[in-house]
């Protein structure tokens, strides 16, 4: 069967063709919105026109059949228009108000999970994990599923002080926004990599490999034409493995995940913040990582209990102080928590005013 003629450098299709007519008409002229329920909202335009959105959870990893199922629903209630959010939820765009309730009803019947709007947990931004990435040191999808099963009602129903953004990254390359998330999980190694001296000279550029190390732990080995790793200095980031495959960092017995907290990207009230280390390590414990799930839930619920309305996790922690975060959550403080990377100095406490 002949293939159609290929084109190059055409770029993505212009978005306009995918916009529902009411959006095209009121583009740039929206006046306000109202959150109607944890998964529905309406936006009202200056013209008085309205558009309704129903947000539905997605595992992000979707089969074509599931996409077709979704399309079928969108055809029925949304004139064939839908979108996805920046956190990978599905949004059904309803132009005809009368179709809102029936849509919600059908979604419920078909066991779709409606929610994620307003001060709640939304979908977890995550990465490939064992599903697809050679670098993965845990499975992202499995962690997400396990956590969201546990936090389900925080997506569909329960209110929190503010939005809580979760993320999972399967290695420190952090292909998500782990470094600025309210609560996030990042997979970490704990043993220096093993060097295959035979293949390194064949497959790797030595200077690039040396330069790849954040702690300058790698030096060339003129004898073997390979490299030597100073194990004292290595903090197991795996970047040498990224640039030089014969350096193997995986160690199933000692790999696992860390939990970081308190990041945000929005500018509301306080500046965007990096996430900070809360718990340095859990062993990988598939299929459901129960300790990790409980630790996330504990942090979330401690926040829910103590934070003021509109405070993000990081804002709450900064108000009460990190020493109090550790005492309220009951998390142990270890040497790993104390920074020793480039900017460590700025994290040391330079004040006699703190809580016990």
């Amino acid at each position: 069967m002949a293939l159609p003629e290929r084109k190059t450098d055409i770029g993505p299709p212009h978005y306009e063709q995918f916009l529902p007519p009411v959006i095209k008409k009121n583009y740039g002229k929206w006046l306000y919105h109202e959150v109607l329920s944890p998964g529905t909202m309406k936006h009202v335009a200056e013209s008085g026109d309205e558009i309704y959105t129903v947000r539905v959870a997605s595992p992000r990893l979707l089969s074509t059949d599931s996409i077709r199922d979704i399309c079928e629903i969108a055809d029925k209630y949304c004139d064939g228009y839908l979108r996805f959010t920046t956190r990978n939820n599905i949004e059904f765009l309803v132009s005809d108000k009368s179709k809102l309730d029936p849509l919600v009803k059908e979604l419920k019947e078909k066991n779709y999970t409606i929610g994620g709007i307003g001060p709640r947990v939304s979908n977890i931004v995550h990465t490939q994990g064992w599903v697809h990435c050679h670098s993965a040191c845990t499975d992202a999808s499995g962690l997400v599923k396990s956590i969201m099963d546990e936090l389900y009602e925080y997506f569909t129903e329960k209110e929190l002080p503010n939005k809580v953004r979760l993320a999972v990254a399967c290695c420190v390359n952090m292909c998500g926004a782990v470094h600025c998330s309210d609560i996030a999980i990042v997979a970490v190694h704990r043993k220096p990599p093993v060097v295959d001296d035979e293949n390194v000279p064949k497959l790797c550029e030595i200077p690039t490999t040396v330069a790849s190390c954040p702690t300058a732990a790698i030096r060339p080995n003129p004898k073997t034409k390979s490299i030597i790793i100073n194990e004292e200095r290595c903090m197991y980031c795996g970047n040498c493995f990224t640039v030089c495959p014969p350096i193997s960092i995986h160690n199933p017995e000692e790999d696992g995940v860390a939990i970081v907290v308190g990041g945000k990207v929005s500018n509301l009230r306080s500046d965007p913040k990096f996430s900070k280390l809360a718990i340095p390590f859990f062993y990988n414990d598939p299929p459901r990582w129960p300790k990790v799930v409980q630790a996330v839930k504990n942090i979330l619920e401690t926040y829910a209990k103590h934070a003021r309305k509109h405070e993000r996790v990081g804002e709450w922690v900064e108000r009460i102080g990190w020493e109090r975060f550790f005492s309220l959550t009951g998390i142990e403080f270890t040497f790993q928590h104390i920074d020793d990377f480039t900017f460590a100095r700025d994290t040391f406490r330079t004040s006699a005013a703190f809580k016990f």
Partner: protein
Amino acid sequence: MSGKYKTPMLDELEKGPWPSFVTEIKKAAKKSDMAEDELGQLEKSYNTKRGYWKHGGIVGVLGYGGGVIGRYSSLPEEFPGVAHFHTVRVNQPSGFFYTTKALREICDIWDKYGSGLTNLHGSTGDLVLLGTKTENLEAVFAELSSRGWDLGGSGSAMRTPSCCVGMARCEWANIDTMDLCNELTQYYQDQLHRPAFPYKFKIKISGCACDCVAAIARADLSIIGTWKDSIQINQDEVRKYAEAGLDIQKEIVDMCPTQCMYYNPEDKTLKIADAECNRCMHCIAKMTKALRPGKEKGATLLVGSKAPIVVGSLLSWVIVPFMKLTPPYDDLKELIDKMIEWWDDNAKPRERIGELIEAKGMRAFLEAIGVPPMPQQVKEPRKDPFFFWAESDFKK
């Protein structure tokens, strides 16, 4: 084909209320032996706690240097369906809007040539088609491109720009994020498809300081909409919020970071000392019917954010506090070109622009792109009295 593998571990992940990715893989596995072997290999990973993927080799489509992530199983005999399992990054439309027709076309192509598995969407923003063989790549590309789709970026290239929903469905958008995203994507087609940069370069665009595409945290260039004049206040609506029970003093005024708001509970009116407002969006977000961004709209340009490797994670830094953005965005394009040129001229391989700015100093970067020093670029001036004087500084 289904049922080739027993997957007791993964089956656990079909339990519980949240939609299950395992169910998705199983669905695809019914039609595709690629998906089926993905399932099998993944079950093995769950048992042994490790992945079985090799470092990706370079694969792609003719004339392009990116858009496909090569991926090979390290157990090709055990799982021949995933011996090759490359992903195809399809450049999403701005704002992630689709018609069902368009999505179905993509599904059909992918059922024919791929595993039937996708990611909607990848973290950068692409519509990711997950897993196919080398020999199918050209066919996939021909099918896609003939229907108006193109590939996204990978490797040391411009990466697929992305943006928040913006003016399409948000009352706070100060710039047309979707149009700008589309324009820049089109403008950088060559750089997107033919990696020639020192490393990746990402652009993300949010319409306001809520930053719903997390631009400030994960884009080499973060464009964030804002305004210069005064917040528009509708005092009638202020009163209605008060009457509806909103504690304006506590939830709005007391949480304003610049303490520039004054609420009079007597007549239920709100005043803002606009010169002191930093446009953080808190009050507007919580009182959307009463407060709106100002009318003199534009964007702040920030540069440099990225993930932790090598120097630690970065958030983007303010470079241009305010720029008007009107199509065709020539000023902006020119400025981005200058940024990239300087980066390209000076960076080592695998050095992101943020890392380079830190290494060379902010002054070198600002001078190269012709932006003057402004206090908005810093949180605070330097502390130690260790500073340089250029010859030009002595002239005056």
